[in-house]
């Protein structure tokens, strides 16, 4: 290793570091302008990138020269910003920070699906707009475009920092962040401030999308997921400082670049033989950085002074769960036997997704922590099942049980940061965790699937195979076998009923108390920490069961089966239908991509799953605006009750209470005297 080489790689890191910093700039603008932790900023950059690509290559029918394509792309970015403001930001102005974040998740999903539908999954080499060529520095060749990216983003950073410090607009935005009424004192409308900030964000993302062209090809994943390191960078700047975010973004990019250099050394850990550096180290590093940033800066994320009137949707007590279980269970059992195999496969996937969503019902609906990592925990269990078999010959049921236990252990460990951070912070941390687990864990050939996929044996007991490849094929014929479907259904029903019981139990009430008000919960003697950790343990166990079932149903698993996109889709559909109740989870699972509804769309109308994600993203935002509790809540539990009708307090007459009395003075209970002082 030479110092010169290290320096060269650090300089090379200016490229991706600049992009991270740029996306971080978007995060800060969204936060300062509208109080939104915006996880779709990278997706907006991606849309701009694809726009530029299409204009330059003539994909839309006309090929434009670079200056025109750049201009049109920037106009497109502005239009995107206007749309984003009108659709995702303005209508949710008074929503909770979490609802705002989830809305941006909807936008992210729609944007990604749109790009895949329009341009396909493959990466597009993009015509670079920055000058090519290299300079020789420290004995290595460094592309000039790295310095351009650095310079342009530095200029943008200084511009924004200056605007926010010295102009009336900047002061107004800062004032509005504290208290919306303040902004009006400056003669500025809070709505207009928010609009200008959002457009500034989307324009910056347009520039990032254009610049990204010069160092990487455009695809539907890279830029959108770059929001994870960008969030880490913004976290260091407490979501408000442009300068700190810029520097932190650059440093993260440089560190990533340095890691790619280290990967070339023999001492770097490998997986799957020499020459294969262990994958996912970058993502792991970002996760660690984010946790560090979180622990040190989380308390410094400024609260905003706007009025918040919506919280997590209500989690009413289940009504007659047994009746529902029998009715719907019987119908599903029949369908599993009778449906043709494609529909059956969709139904079984929906059942497995139901269990995943049950885990969200517990952790989000009951404990009030929105965690993205649940699907990954399912993956932990799934891969454990696979490796227990291939490496140790352990099969059903022990492999499954150990897998679930393993998921619980990882889940509780990942729950520890949640004791310090909550709400939007937790979403950000668990998003990074999901990314890290997917790349570092599942992408690894030793304990994950590598690039190929890991085999999973069929479940069987006493030699009786009831896996998806069992010979019994039912009325509809074909695999997966109804036997496996029934097994899945049985577990779904059992877990569903247990969760209904949990809601009614003392522990469930403690969970909801914690969700509603942690301080008041502690003041009534609830150990908030323990309740949260128990919640994480239960939710992780349930997620583990779902992951094990998914592994069994496919017979082989890949990292993508439990990937970030799957997780985000599940959360989106959970939110649309209802993430806080059992019936909501069941219906949401019917709708998820890969589930029953998705197969019906494909079979009847030839619509791929991406259409579902595309529409789902929009539906998610609309739901958050119009039915913040999710659709199922209203169907199953009636429309929300009207807030109180004012009523006189009434006359209260004291009745002596033997139970409340502590004994001492219980005997001479008298009314309203002040003669109690005695010594």
């Amino acid at each position, binding site marked *: 290793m030479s110092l010169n080489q290290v320096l060269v790689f650090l300089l090379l890191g200016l490229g991706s570091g600049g992009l991270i910093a740029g996306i971080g700039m978007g995060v800060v603008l969204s936060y300062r302008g509208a109080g939104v932790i915006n996880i779709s900023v990278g997706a907006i950059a991606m849309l701009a990138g694809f726009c530029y690509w299409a204009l330059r290559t003539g994909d839309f029918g006309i090929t434009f020269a670079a200056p025109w394509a750049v201009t049109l792309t920037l106009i497109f970015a502005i239009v995107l910003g206007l749309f984003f403001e009108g659709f995702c930001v303005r209508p949710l102005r008074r929503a909770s920070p979490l609802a705002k974040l989830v809305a941006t998740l909807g936008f992210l999903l729609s944007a990604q699906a749109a790009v895949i539908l329009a341009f396909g999954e493959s990466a597009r080499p993009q015509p670079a707009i920055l000058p090519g060529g290299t300079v020789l520095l420290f004995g290595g060749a460094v592309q000039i475009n790295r310095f351009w990216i650095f310079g342009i983003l530095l200029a943008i950073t200084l511009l924004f920092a200056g605007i926010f410090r010295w102009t009336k607009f900047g002061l107004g935005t800062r004032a509005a962040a504290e208290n919306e009424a303040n902004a009006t004192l400056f003669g500025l409308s809070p709505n207009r401030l928010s609009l200008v900030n959002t457009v500034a964000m989307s324009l910056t993302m347009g520039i990032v999308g254009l610049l990204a062209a010069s160092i990487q090809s455009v695809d539907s994943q890279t830029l959108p997921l770059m929001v994870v390191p960008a969030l880490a960078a913004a976290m260091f700047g407490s979501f408000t400082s442009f300068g700190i975010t810029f520097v932190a973004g650059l440093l993260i990019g440089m560190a990533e670049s340095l890691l790619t250099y280290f990967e070339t050394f023999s001492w770097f850990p490998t997986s799957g033989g020499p020459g294969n550096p262990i994958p996912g180290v970058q993502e792991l590093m970002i996760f660690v950085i984010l946790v560090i940033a979180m622990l040190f800066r989380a308390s410094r994320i400024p609260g905003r002074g706007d009025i918040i009137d919506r919280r997590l949707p209500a989690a009413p007590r289940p009504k007659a769960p047994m009746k529902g279980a029998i009715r719907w269970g019987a119908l599903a059992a029949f369908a599993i036997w009778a449906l043709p195999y494609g529909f059956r496969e969709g139904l079984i996937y929906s059942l497995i997704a139901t269990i995943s969503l049950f885990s969200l019902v517990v952790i989000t609906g009951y404990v009030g922590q929105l965690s993205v990592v649940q699907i990954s925990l399912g993956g932990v269990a799934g891969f454990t099942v696979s490796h227990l078999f291939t490496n140790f010959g352990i099969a059903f049921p022990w492999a499954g049980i150990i897998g679930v236990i393993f998921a619980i252990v990882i889940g509780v460990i990942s729950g520890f940061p949640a004791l310090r951070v909550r709400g939007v912070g937790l979403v950000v941390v668990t998003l990074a965790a999901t990314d890290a687990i997917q790349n570092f864990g599942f992408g690894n050939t030793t304990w994950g699937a590598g690039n190929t996929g890991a085999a999973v044996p069929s479940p069987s007991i006493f030699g009786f195979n009831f896996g998806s490849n069992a010979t019994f094929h039912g009325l509809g014929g074909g695999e997966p076998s109804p036997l496996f479907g029934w097994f899945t259904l049985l577990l779904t029903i059992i877990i569903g009923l247990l969760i209904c019981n949990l809601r009614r139990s*003392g522990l469930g009430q*403690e969970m909801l108390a914690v969700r509603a008000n942690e301080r008041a919960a*502690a003041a009534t*003697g609830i150990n908030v920490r323990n309740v949260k950790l128990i919640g994480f343990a239960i939710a992780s166990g349930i997620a583990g069961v779902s992951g094990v079932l998914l592994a069994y149903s496919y017979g082989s698993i890949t990292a993508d089966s439990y990937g970030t996109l799957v997780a985000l889709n599940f959360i989106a559909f959970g939110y649309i239908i209802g993430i806080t109740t059992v019936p909501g989870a069941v219906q949401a699972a019917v709708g998820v991509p890969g589930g029953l509804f998705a197969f019906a769309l494909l079979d009847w109308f030839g619509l791929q799953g991406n259409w579902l994600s595309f529409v789902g993203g929009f539906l998610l935002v609309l739901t958050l605006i119009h039915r913040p509790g999710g659709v199922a809540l209203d169907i199953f539990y009636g429309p929300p009750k009207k807030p109180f009708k004012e009523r006189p307090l009434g006359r209260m007459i004291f009745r002596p209470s033997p*139970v409340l*009395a502590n004994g001492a003075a219980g005997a001479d209970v008298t009314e309203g005297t002040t003669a109690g002082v005695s010594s």
Partner: protein
Amino acid sequence: MTTVLSAQGVSVSFGAVRALDGVDLEVQSDQLVGLIGPNGAGKTTFIDAVTGFVPSRGEITLGGRRISGMAPHDRARLRLARTWQTIELFDDLSVRENLSVSSRRSTMVSTVSEVLFGRPPRAEALAEEAMHLLELDEDAERMPNELPQGRRKLVGIARALASKPQLLLMDEPAAGLATNESLELGRILRNVVDSGLPILLVDHDMGLVLGICDYIYVLDFGKIIAQGTAEEIRHNPQVLAAYLGGSTSEAVATAEAAEEAAESEHAAK
């Protein structure tokens, strides 16, 4: 009579602000003790310090047991209950659940039997009793946000009572209540104390505090500036200067009126 709460030299600082400065305060087992003081005097901070929600220096004992430094939920489990100035109900739980969650502690055994076998959680006699006491029965299945402010306050008090505390700290329970409502509340509190539960009452309503409390502490700028019976406080020149300010006669008048009203009602019984 024993000392339930004893606070000695309790100090709390928020950065440069000394919210409490060496406060000494005691509550005896049969007392309704008042803590009054102007806005920002540190009353809420004192309750927070005793219940463990702000770090404090000094000695605090509850029923002879030292509780300084303990976590809030551990203090609560020693049967120290409080209400909040801002009510702070569990908005996702019905009124009945709000109360029962405070009177019951779930255990491993109870959880297993309730979750695995679907047993309904034990009915809480204390919760029902507290609900009765504050006449909340008809609201038992309502959610807190369906209730008007006054009743929400009562739910907060009932929730504290449902944990069968050995001491109850109340932060401005009468704020926002009409005069007759606050008199009603005063009578309830008086009776709760007489049935054996000591209370530390923080309130702005001079009439209420001077009318029903056995002993009163006056806090100003984080320091206790006076203490004594209602009579002593009413005539303490320091209190008059610091707390009652210009409107001395007015405050005394309301206090006396309140007392008279309470007495006449008592006589009418």
